[in-house]
């Protein structure tokens, strides 16, 4: 087996070409071809009908909303929408496909020839050309049970749940992506991320990667120079996180460079991504078994989207993520780098809601990108998963703006909110954290501090203001940090001079 070539070395000697297929599960209420509920997390085999199970005599009928969603996606990707298109049968035998074919689209996709602009980490824009977007159905879910714990005579077997079988999918296929060079892994990741954001903005899918709502197949090939003919590609299937998409491309470039360096030809094959090791492994070699014998689906009539309907959908498209980010950045007055950090941290919506709850853009960013980002990192969760809402952060900032707490107390209040003690106001009252703004208790504390440190008191009285910090510190400590240090200083000086 060939050794891996260091990535930088590989990209110095080879040009990378990638192609990405993204499958998105549409967020319709029912499946693509029947009325079975399209839910997530139900008990196995409880969201099935005769159509989902491929029972003889059952007939499919197209979900009109799924077609509308597919058109929305096509339009958002600047595709042409077919005047007419049809479904096709993709024939193969696999237990998760109960009909022994997947209903898909083959030679007539609903959307074709588009593009999408992808923003890279440094803010530059890379345009990805889209070949097609077509409709199809998801397969059921297999669970493999090993021989040792198997209950069927100790044999190895698989368990199949058909709840997912028939969930509407749209598959988006890029043209070969050239010109990315060493940045191909980053382009791949940013592209999938861009699509995910787009699906959410279009409200066609929850697009949750961790639930497998969005899945990517990553094709990679390398060639000596950008002028050389395309190299043989491999397809790494089911790469299901942004980070993995980037890593999978990187790994394949290093691996293929090693193979070619040894004078061996790349085999066109399907490979599997192994998250734990960050490597790909050979799956099945493309061969005779991959002959899907596509033919037009006779049980479904063609789809010919009315032009007026297409234009109606186009007119109803929401503001798309890239335009929205530009608008918000202008409104919030964030620098480019600040906005990029906010986007990369997945904090755009959080900050937007925090601002809507009354915080200034600067304050909202300070909380989410500072204290909360640190907490999320410590707990290894996403910002949005922290047990605090943007509205609560807005309320917290209002307490600061109203002078009821200072920044230090605000952090303690936040701690309480994160610990599930309630809204900021509740935590503030329960923990007794309000700033002491009444001069009476402050003067008492000042007098006590002066009495406790007579030598320092004497120095200050004789005009040496050097050690006032010691007295202020003692007062802050006595009031458990709830005093306004500036006010303490004012009162202290008045006390001494008066």
């Amino acid at each position, binding site marked *: 087996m060939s050794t891996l070539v260091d990535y930088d070395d590989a990209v110095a000697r080879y040009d990378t070409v990638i192609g990405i297929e993204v499958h998105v599960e549409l967020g*319709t*209420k*029912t499946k693509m071809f*029947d*009325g*079975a*509920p399209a839910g997530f997390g139900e*008990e*196995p*085999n*409880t*969201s*099935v*009908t*005769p159509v989902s*199970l491929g029972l003889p005599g059952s007939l499919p*009928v*197209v*979900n*009109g*909303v*799924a*077609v509308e969603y597919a058109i929305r996606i096509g339009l958002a990707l600047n595709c042409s929408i077919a005047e*007419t298109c*049809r479904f096709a049968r993709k*024939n193969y*035998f*696999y*237990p*998760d496909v109960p009909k022994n074919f997947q209903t898909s689209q083959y030679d007539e996709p609903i959307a074709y020839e588009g593009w999408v602009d992808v923003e890279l980490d440094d803010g530059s824009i890379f345009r990805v050309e889209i070949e097609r977007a077509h409709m199809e159905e998801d397969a059921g879910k*297999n*669970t*493999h049970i090993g021989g040792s714990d198997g*209950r*069927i005579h100790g*044999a*190895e*077997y*698989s*368990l*199949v*749940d*058909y709840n997912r079988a028939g969930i509407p999918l749209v598959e988006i296929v890029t043209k070969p992506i050239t010109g990315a060079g060493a940045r191909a892994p980053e382009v791949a990741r940013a592209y999938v991320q861009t699509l995910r954001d787009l699906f959410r903005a279009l409200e066609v899918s929850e697009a949750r990667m961790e639930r497998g709502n969005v899945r990517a197949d990553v094709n990679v090939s390398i060639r000596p120079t950008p002028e050389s003919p395309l190299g043989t590609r491999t397809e790494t299937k*089911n790469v299901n996180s942004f980070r993995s998409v980037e890593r999978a491309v990187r790994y394949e470039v290093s691996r293929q460079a090693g193979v070619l360096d040894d004078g061996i030809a790349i085999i066109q094959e399907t490979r*599997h991504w192994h998250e734990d090791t960050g490597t790909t492994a050979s*799956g*099945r070699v493309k061969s*005779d*078994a991959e*002959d899907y*014998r596509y033919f*037009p689906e*006779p049980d*479904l*009539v*063609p*789809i*010919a*989207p*009315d032009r007026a309907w297409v234009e109606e959908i186009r007119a109803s498209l929401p503001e798309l993520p890239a335009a929205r980010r530009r608008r918000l950045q202008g409104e919030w007055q964030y620098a480019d780098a600040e906005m990029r950090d906010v986007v990369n941290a997945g904090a755009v919506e959080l900050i937007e809601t925090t601002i809507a709850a009354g915080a200034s853009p600067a304050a909202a960013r300070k909380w989410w990108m500072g204290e909360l980002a640190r907490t999320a990192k410590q707990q290894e969760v996403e910002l949005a998963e922290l047990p605090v809402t943007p509205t609560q952060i807005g309320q917290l900032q209002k307490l600061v703006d109203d002078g009821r707490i200072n920044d230090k107390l605000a952090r303690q209040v936040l701690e309480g909110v994160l610990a599930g003690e309630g809204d900021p106001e509740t935590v503030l009252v329960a923990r007794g954290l309000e700033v002491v703004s009444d001069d009476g208790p402050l003067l008492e504390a000042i007098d006590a501090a002066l009495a406790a440190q007579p030598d320092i008191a004497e120095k200050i009285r004789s005009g040496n203001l050097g050690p006032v910090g010691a007295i202020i510190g003692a007062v802050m400590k006595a009031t458990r940090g709830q005093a306004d240090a500036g006010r303490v200083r004012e009162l202290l000086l008045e006390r001494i001079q008066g």
Partner: protein
Amino acid sequence: MSTLSRDEVARVAGLARIDLTPAELDRLAGELDVIVESVARVSEIATPDVPATSHPLPLTNVFRPDVPVEPVDRALVLASAPEHIDGKFAVPQILGEDA
């Protein structure tokens, strides 16, 4: 002249998981060849301006509203399964896949 070879019939049968005996292969290669030739004759008659027809019905856009129906009761769903475990269909091991 034969347009469909015995090997091709064997290959397609394999893809379709149809187990054919050598005698059946011989017979079907001949019979299917007649069908293929007949279709080829139709192609000769059809001029290029006649589009291929995949759907004879003059219908398009038959859609269903996105309204859930009652799913089939699971006991009934699993009743047709040769084996089932924990509410799932138990099937022979799927080779070479970790899906």
